[in-house]
């Protein structure tokens, strides 16, 4: 366009003018990462936050146990110890320069939350209370578990999420609740905004922005048993893929050891941090066999594999033999009600079990995606996955892969990562905007793809049902790409996914109205899920080793010579292309990982 005037509102074909909005910053996702960035940037710039659910309904709020920081409020602790634990926990796949930033800034970030008003639990001296968590140790793994997880009873995520909503309200952040992102507008390596769907009223809106940030969360919903919310369908990841950008380390999916049996709802690691035991159906404390020194407080990947092994070898409980028990009885009523009230409530409401008197049946549950959108330390999304940033596009939190978690995340490092990198994203957005006065040019066909998608699905009248395809996808992923993987299962799954993709083209939906149409949204979400699960499976098939949460029974050992590197994957013309990048190693050389 030759007569481009950055100050006038641009016309976008197919979108009414009052549905074209302009903001300095447009953030998608109102969880910890998104709102922390919004809070940071809103002191200086006009910030809009889009979220497919009302902000306080975001899934960050379901986090229970705590947020890691070496505050040393309860006992000696150092950022170097925290760094070692995170590196070792990641099975040496985490980038150590970035992990160093994470652990050094952690105390600042947690204290800022306190200053904002977050109701942390307290020590007798009035400082933020800390508890034990899996994989967090003293003295570079040589000592026992360390008190490092800062907590608000067992509602830490809830307390932090609501605090962020409150300070965002104070800063007059403009929320667009129940807006669903449909497509990114990236042209010539510059992000120009995004297209979204107004869920309540129906209608496509265009958000013209100088910067866009994604804090769109994870994708646990591609698995049958998951701790994730129904909203966690990983939409942001496939929007990035569709914009021609890569994803990183998608094969690494964390299974949390303790989800409520058959429900998958999270039983916080705090239950083990406070002293809970894991028992098989014979009442044997089986972690003795797998992690004799750290026992239940070994990292999640290891504990989940141990549980799954018990189950596979016939020592599981429950009608399908797919559970084991977590026993809290010896903690006593006082401690349970004071430190773990939410777990008591969940076990009671969902399984009818009083954990003061009975052990809770649990099973591993898909919990966290270590991989995601490749970003640099300032949260800029990388077009080549390595160093070339997309101008004006940022990501943080679970949807991003900066990579601090590598092959496996330690408990309490996720709330930390989301808030810390949300804050960093906010700061780098502010730096960018101070230098960038003009809006980028908005192409007039910006909404074409999104309008087409909505129209196609709203008029879809095939015979396949979204709910049924999704259920099959979830079952297949659980069985064939779960805790234990092998080439045979993954190859079968590759074919299975292709077939599901074909069936997805023949779906029909019941609800053809535009107002609050979740039938439409679930179909769009399924399209996203089918898009990026291919990358998970292809990445898992390629990575012929076992590292962190990625465990190949046909390649049971870690292979640092070949695989001490990050996977980058693109989707071009329906084909998956791979590239790799080295892991940054600074302080800690890879060693055998024992607990």
């Amino acid at each position, binding site marked *: 366009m030759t007569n481009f005037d950055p100050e006038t509102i641009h016309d976008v074909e197919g979108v009414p003018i009052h549905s074209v909005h302009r903001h300095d910053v447009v953030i998608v996702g109102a969880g910890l990462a998104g709102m922390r960035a919004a809070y940071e940037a809103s002191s200086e710039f006009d910030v809009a936050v889009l979220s497919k659910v*009302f902000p306080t309904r975001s899934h960050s709020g379901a986090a229970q146990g705590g947020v890691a920081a070496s505050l040393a409020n309860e006992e000696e602790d150092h950022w170097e110890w925290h760094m070692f634990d995170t590196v070792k926990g990641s099975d040496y796949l985490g980038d150590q320069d970035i992990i160093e930033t994470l652990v050094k800034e952690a105390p600042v970030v947690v204290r800022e939350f*306190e*200053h904002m008003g977050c109701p942390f639990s307290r020590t007798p001296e009035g400082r*933020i209370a800390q508890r034990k968590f899996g994989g967090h140790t003293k003295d570079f793994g040589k000592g026992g578990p360390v008190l490092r997880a800062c907590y608000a009873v067992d509602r830490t995520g809830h307390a932090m999420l609501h605090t962020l909503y409150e300070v965002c309200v104070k800063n007059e952040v403009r929320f667009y609740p129940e807006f669903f992102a449909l497509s990114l507008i990236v042209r010539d390596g510059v992000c120009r905004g995004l297209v979204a769907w107004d869920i309540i009223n129906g209608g496509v809106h265009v958000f013209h922005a100088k910067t866009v940030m994604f804090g769109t969360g994870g994708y646990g919903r591609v698995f049958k048993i998951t701790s994730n919310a*129904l909203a966690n369908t990983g939409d942001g990841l496939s929007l990035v893929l569709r914009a021609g950008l890569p994803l990183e380390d998608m094969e690494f999916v964390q299974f949390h050891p303790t989800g409520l049996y058959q429900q998958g709802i999270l039983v916080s690691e705090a239950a083990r941090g406070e002293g809970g035991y894991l028992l098989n159906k014979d009442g044997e404390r089986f972690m003795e066999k797998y992690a004799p020194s750290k026992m239940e407080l070994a990292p999640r990947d290891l504990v989940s594999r141990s549980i799954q092994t018990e189950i596979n070898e016939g020592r599981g409980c429950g009608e399908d033999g797919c559970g084991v028990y977590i026993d809290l009885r010896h903690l006593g009523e006082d401690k349970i009600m004071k430190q773990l009230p939410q777990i008591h409530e969940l076990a009671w409401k*969902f399984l009818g079990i009083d954990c003061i008197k009975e052990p809770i049946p649990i099973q591993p549950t898909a919990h966290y995606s270590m991989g995601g959108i490749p970003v640099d330390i300032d949260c800029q999304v990388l077009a080549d996955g390595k160093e070339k940033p997309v101008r004006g596009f940022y990501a943080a939190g679970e949807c991003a892969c900066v990579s601090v978690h590598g092959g496996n995340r330690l408990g309490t490092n996720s709330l930390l990562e989301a808030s810390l990198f949300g804050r960093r994203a906010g700061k780098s957005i502010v730096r960018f905007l101070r230098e960038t006065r003009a809006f980028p040019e908005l192409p007039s066909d910006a909404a074409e793809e999104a309008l087409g998608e909505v129209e196609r699905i709203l008029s879809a009248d095939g015979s396949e*049902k*979204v709910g*049924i395809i999704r259920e099959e996808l979830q079952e297949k992923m659980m069985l064939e790409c779960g805790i234990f993987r092998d080439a045979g299962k993954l190859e079968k799954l590759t074919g299975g996914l292709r077939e599901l993709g074909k069936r997805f083209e023949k779906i029909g939906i019941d609800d053809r109205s535009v107002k609050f149409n979740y*039938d439409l949204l679930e179909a769009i979400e399924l399209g996203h899920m089918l898009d990026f699960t291919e990358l998970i499976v292809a990445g898992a098939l390629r990575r012929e080793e076992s590292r962190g949460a990625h465990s190949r029974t046909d390649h049971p050992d870690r292979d640092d010579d070949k695989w001490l590197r990050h996977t980058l994957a693109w989707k071009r013309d329906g084909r998956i292309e791979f590239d790799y990048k080295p892991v940054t190693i600074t302080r800690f050389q890879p060693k055998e990982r024992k607990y």
Partner: protein
Amino acid sequence: MAMITFRINRYNPDDERRGHYVQEYQLDVEKGTTLLDALNEIKWKQDGTLTFRRSCRSGICGSCAMTINGVNNLACETQVLGLGNSTVTVEPMRGYPVIKDLVVSLDPLVRGILAVKPYMITHSPPPSDQERLQSPEEREKIDGLYECILCGSCTSSCPSFWADKEYIGPHAFLKAYRFIADSRDEGSREHLEALDDRHGLWRCHTIFNCVEACPKDLNPTKAISELKKELVRRKLG
């Protein structure tokens, strides 16, 4: 396993002529099935047009509050067989404008929350490189207040809200008191300002419906009483 009839109150904004109506669905329900599971099953297998909000399905996000057999509760925390009837009546929460089927507008909730300045107000800077100190006893004062998930059950069940749609609402009073009771907050006056209003605190007639409706067992009425006492104390002293 039991066959349960779900009588669901429906409304399609595109079909004003039909207005609100009741539709019945039948579903085989096992032990352990929550109402949300059942609604999902109906939506995914029987009728894709059935609309309701949902997300975490573990009772922490507050999306799926609805009126179940006449009582407000979270669908995800309601065991269908636990209700003890072969027919389950599901309606959108009362008092709020209905958007579609079981989905209601959250605007009244948000308005109430915004009115009470729902954030910690401090005038002195925090200590540098340290948290503000708060003893466990002081911290205990906000237990039963900060746990609110903003599901809206309380305000929807409140007769004062039914009569006055501009009533700030028990959820917002609970929020206000969460800050006033917090030893770190220095802005009580500002939080209280909006409450001493025609649509504020004095419209509460201690009916206790909010307490009964709260799925998290919180007590907004108690918070309201404390707020009333606090306001009087300020007026007199």
